[in-house]
């Protein structure tokens, strides 16, 4: 009897405890559900601000710090808008992330865009208002077929001048080496470094996109020859050029990889090339980050004396691809159509982009090691020349040997072909495929891309 009474009492106490715990859990869930995630942010006693999300890729540390600084500065001064950062993790597949966002109806208001033409055609982007585009130099913005501007640049449109060879200046001085002025000088430089018993060049291919870093510098003189035909890819689409025309730069790429590139490049990540350089495991490294790479090196080792150059052509010309302001390869900041359906969201996105192209914001970007976009008031920007090696970058922009060329493709699935081309080149460099087979394979893929439209 006593035991039954004791057990009954214990059971009642247990039931009461469980009920209390359940009540606490429900209350916690209710409070969590009450937290605002996409609606208006409140400050006590002030009008509610509109919160918008800004999606951006995080592979570049310099860009990450610029975004943080710009958004913080914007949020401090805006009375109507709060920008919430929505970073895409490094290494994420961009297309997958955007498709997932689209499938779940979760577009942010401001998006750092890739594969732009595909999304414009699908109606996923809203036109950028004139109040934003009039702040930017006309050459830096391009309109789509319908006359609207859908993307605006987030950095200086200096084309692919950021595709460089970054090198150890101290090593060059100690070994009496010079920056090459012709392609033959470049191959001699590689041979001289190797003759010293050192590794001439580090490059990366763990992520597929860094394979462009060496390739494009070698191929640019050949691409530039097709400028009058609208660019190489346009000529290839029209049947005036073929992948066979790229045999020479492909051979150069293969020879340099086999003889002068640091072992293990197949699994080396792009960010790791900085580590290899500052640890003297290679004298030079490929880069596509321009001044941003110099900034990264300076953060890692302030005593490292870095410089950069672009591999010149046989005639000494420095051929650099102009930015595409149209087409599938054009990128930049965009406003999503989903945000444009909400007047407040669209107004807030516009306000943020207008702030993005102010002189003070440009100065903030420069201070963080980023090249500010080509705004109309560019003369007022205080350029950052304090990063070691930055003078080399600005000297390239002023070089009398600099030759800008265009190479835009209007194929809607060109980015997919480009990915295939990169992988096929890596396969060739790795010795899995001959140049002949690679050319045939890439040509077949390009033909399919053209047929698909």
């Amino acid at each position: 009897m006593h035991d039954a009474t004791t057990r009954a009492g214990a059971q009642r106490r247990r039931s009461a405890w469980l009920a209390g715990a359940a009540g606490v859990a429900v209350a916690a869930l209710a409070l969590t559900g009450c937290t605002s995630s996409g609606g208006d942010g409140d400050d006590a006693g002030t009008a509610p601000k509109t919160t918008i999300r800004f999606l951006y890729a995080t592979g570049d540390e310099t860009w990450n710090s610029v975004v943080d600084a710009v958004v913080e500065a914007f949020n401090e001064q805006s009375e109507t808008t709060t920008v919430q950062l929505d970073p895409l993790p490094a290494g994420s597949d961009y297309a997958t992330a955007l498709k997932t966002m689209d499938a779940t109806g979760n577009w942010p208001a401001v998006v750092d865009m890739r594969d732009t033409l595909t999304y414009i055609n699908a109606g996923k982007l809203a036109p950028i208002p004139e109040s934003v585009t009039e702040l930017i130099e006309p050459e830096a913005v391009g309109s789509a077929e319908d006359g609207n501007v859908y993307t605006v640049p987030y950095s200086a449109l200096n084309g692919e001048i950021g595709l460089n060879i970054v090198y150890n200046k101290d090593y060059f001085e100690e070994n009496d080496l010079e920056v090459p002025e012709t392609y033959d000088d470049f191959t001699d430089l590689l041979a001289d470094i190797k003759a010293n018993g050192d590794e001439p060049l580090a490059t990366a291919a763990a992520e597929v996109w860094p394979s462009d870093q060496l390739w494009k510098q070698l191929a640019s003189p050949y691409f530039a020859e097709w400028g009058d035909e609208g660019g190489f890819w346009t000529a290839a689409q029209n049947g005036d050029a073929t992948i066979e025309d790229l045999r020479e730069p492909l051979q150069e790429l293969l020879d340099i990889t086999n003889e002068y590139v640091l072992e293990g490049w197949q699994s080396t990540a792009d960010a790791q090339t900085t580590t290899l350089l500052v640890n003297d495991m290679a004298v030079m490294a490929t880069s596509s980050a321009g001044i941003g790479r110099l900034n990264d090196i300076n953060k890692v080792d302030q005593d490292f004396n870095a410089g950069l150059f672009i591999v010149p052509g046989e005639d000494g010309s420095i051929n650099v691809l102009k930015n595409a302001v149209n087409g599938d390869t054009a990128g930049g900041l965009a406003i999503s159509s989903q945000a444009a359906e909400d007047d407040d969201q669209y107004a807030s996105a516009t306000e943020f982009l207008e702030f993005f192209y102010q002189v003070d914001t440009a100065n903030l970007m420069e201070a963080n090691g980023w090249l500010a976009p080509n705004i109309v008031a560019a003369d007022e920007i205080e350029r950052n020349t304090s990063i070691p090696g930055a003078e080399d970058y600005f000297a390239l922009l002023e070089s009398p040997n600099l030759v800008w060329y265009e190479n835009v493709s209007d194929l809607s699935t060109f980015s997919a072909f480009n990915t295939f081309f990169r992988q096929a080149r890596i396969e060739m460099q790795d010795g899995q495929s001959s140049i002949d087979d690679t050319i045939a394979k890439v040509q077949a893929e390009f033909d399919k891309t053209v047929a698909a439209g």
Partner: protein
Amino acid sequence: MTDQSASQGQTQVVGAAVRLSGGGPLDGAPEGAPDDVSFVPVGPEREQRRTRRFRSARWVMLGFVAPALVIYLLMVIVPSIQSLQLSFTNWDGISPDYEYVGVRNYEEILTSGRFWNAVKNTLILGLGSAVIINAISLGVALMLDKVGRWQGFFRTAVYLPALVSGFILATVWKYLLNFNFGAVNTFLRDAGFPEWARDWLGDSSIVVGVILFITCFTLGGNTTLIYLANLQSVPQELTEAARIDGANSRQVFRHVTWPMLAGAVTVNMTLAMIAGWTIFDQVMVLTAGGPGFVSETMAFFIYKVGFGEYRAGFGSAAAIVLFLVVIVSTVAANAYMRKREIQA
């Protein structure tokens, strides 16, 4: 006895129906009848009552299953059927409209060297991991079965890798196997074996083997525990009888234990093969299909073209092909392995 085939055709339903009525299992049994639940007399009236009770119980059971079934249909079956429909289109995964292109996607897949390379890698990883995982897991389970007091500790240690997601384990291995700075090569170089240091994830001749190794490392825990559970349910009297007849340990394993494990082998091989056919995490993290295309698997190929290259229709067609490969191989393997299973 844990062999599922042994439980087919038994009269548990009769026993349950008897309990619902409140009657004892042996009510109505003639005197001297064996003490066996299966011997429940079921005359016509009792049969009708049992049928009515079962029908109402069935609706209750369906009511409990329905929510999960609806979600499963909406999340798995309907999208799968839609994949079949999309496989005949040129949808890019983003645009609101698309065109039907007939079997063009299938033609392109079946004539694509890249696809067949992915099939080859999938076969290597699928079959290879199934065989290796099962062989190693069985060996570990046999050892665990003999361990006395510390069995719980070792069982936990064996199972721990299975608790960590494949993605995280692959990330850890990626750092360990880094050519320049990874722990494996650093150890080899410091130990005086620099020639053994390899580009484990960049050498096209070994990269698939490395992925196979890491996959086996990840998936062994569950398989081991299934074997261990089955080993511990092998009837002791059979092994004792074999030993009395003069069988040594190897003969006992070959003629008594191994046949009794047939059901577990079927389950484990099937699960391992399916995991191998659909391997994705390890490839994505370790190599992204590279260098070049050399380590692409079918699942990765589908992801790459369907999501990364805006060719959702083409990716759907590849997914259908993968589905057919998995179904055919799994059914065939199951049919073969089922024949070996012992009926109790």
